[in-house]
């Protein structure tokens, strides 16, 4: 089943407003240090990089590491400048990227 993401972003904002953005991605964040029932190491499967762009410009990015819990919740703020699109990208240690977008209308 595909990974799922929940994104909380205000639908509308005034120019210059500080807006809070909350993201929640379903992901096991398997550390690669744990053993399974068969005694073998469970392969590492973690998100390594999170990037948020706002109309093409990076407004927030983060590096994630094995000690971060499953289903990473990332919250940050930015300043509403223009109506447009936020693009959220989570990249895992296999190089695969999951992308979600959200729209904001700035008055």
């Amino acid at each position, binding site marked *: *089943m595909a990974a*799922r993401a*929940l994104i*909380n972003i205000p639908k509308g904002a005034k120019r210059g407003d500080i807006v809070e953005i*909350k993201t*929640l991605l*379903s992901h096991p964040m398997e550390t690669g240090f744990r053993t399974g029932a068969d005694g073998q190491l469970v392969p590492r499967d973690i998100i390594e990089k999170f990037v948020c762009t706002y109309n093409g410009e990076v407004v927030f990015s983060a590096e994630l590491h094995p000690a971060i*819990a499953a289903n990473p*919740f990332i919250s940050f703020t930015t300043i509403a400048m223009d109506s447009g699109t936020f693009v959220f990208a989570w990249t895992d240690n296999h190089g695969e990227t999951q992308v979600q977008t959200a729209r904001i209308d700035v008055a």
Partner: protein
Amino acid sequence: MARRRSRRPGSMWRSTLLACLALGAASAVAQDARKSGFAYMGPDTQAMQKDDLANPGMLSALDGEALWNAPAGASGKSCASCHGDATASMKGVAARYPAYEATHNAPVDLAGRINLCREGNQQAPALPRESREAIGLATYIGQQSRGLSIAPPDDPRLTPFHEQGKALYTQRMGQLNFSCAQCHDENAGGHLGAAPIPQAHPTGYPLYRLEWQATGSLQRRFRNCMAGVRAEPYSYGSPEFIALELYLMDRAKGMAVETPAVRP
């Protein structure tokens, strides 16, 4: 000398009324001193549960919604093919499980009901208990009862299973030789180490437990507790667990469903 001023007749009447109100409030508390595990959580975890866009249990509900509408098995039918829109058809369903299943002469829990439907009607393989799919569907169906009162079926055929559940709840078990009741009735509100002991009302299952980093069922929670008292846990879907679930749902009758809840 304000303190010694004689009371006006009105103030006397008012204090009597206040006393009556206080008595009334006290008896209401005595009638229902039951508390959901939600009441024992810190404000951060409570906020996480209340915000649907921060509650990780909602990820499971989304999984369930996708499965609800996806055809499965040889029949090529989805849940929605028969049951339609879950937000209408599944409203209140989770609040009245486990329920008696005549073909089995025994109660089934919601996860068991889903699998009966899959095998019988969809002709699809049963979902393994606690799999992402099984938990997702149960969470999505449970979510449709959110805010409704737990309403166990009034079915006399369930009585012996209810009695079995009650016996299990009060039976000592494991190397530590504890019963459920010793912690969750006699010492509820106290602490086990740093963790508060709740009253064990299954109001929010399947729920997201931070310790699990996943959404899990009430039976997973049972297995945790049993391992904690060094007892050998019953298996998922065992008659013992369903009887215990039946008893606990009856014990929580009238409390609001919180699915998907968040617990530490």
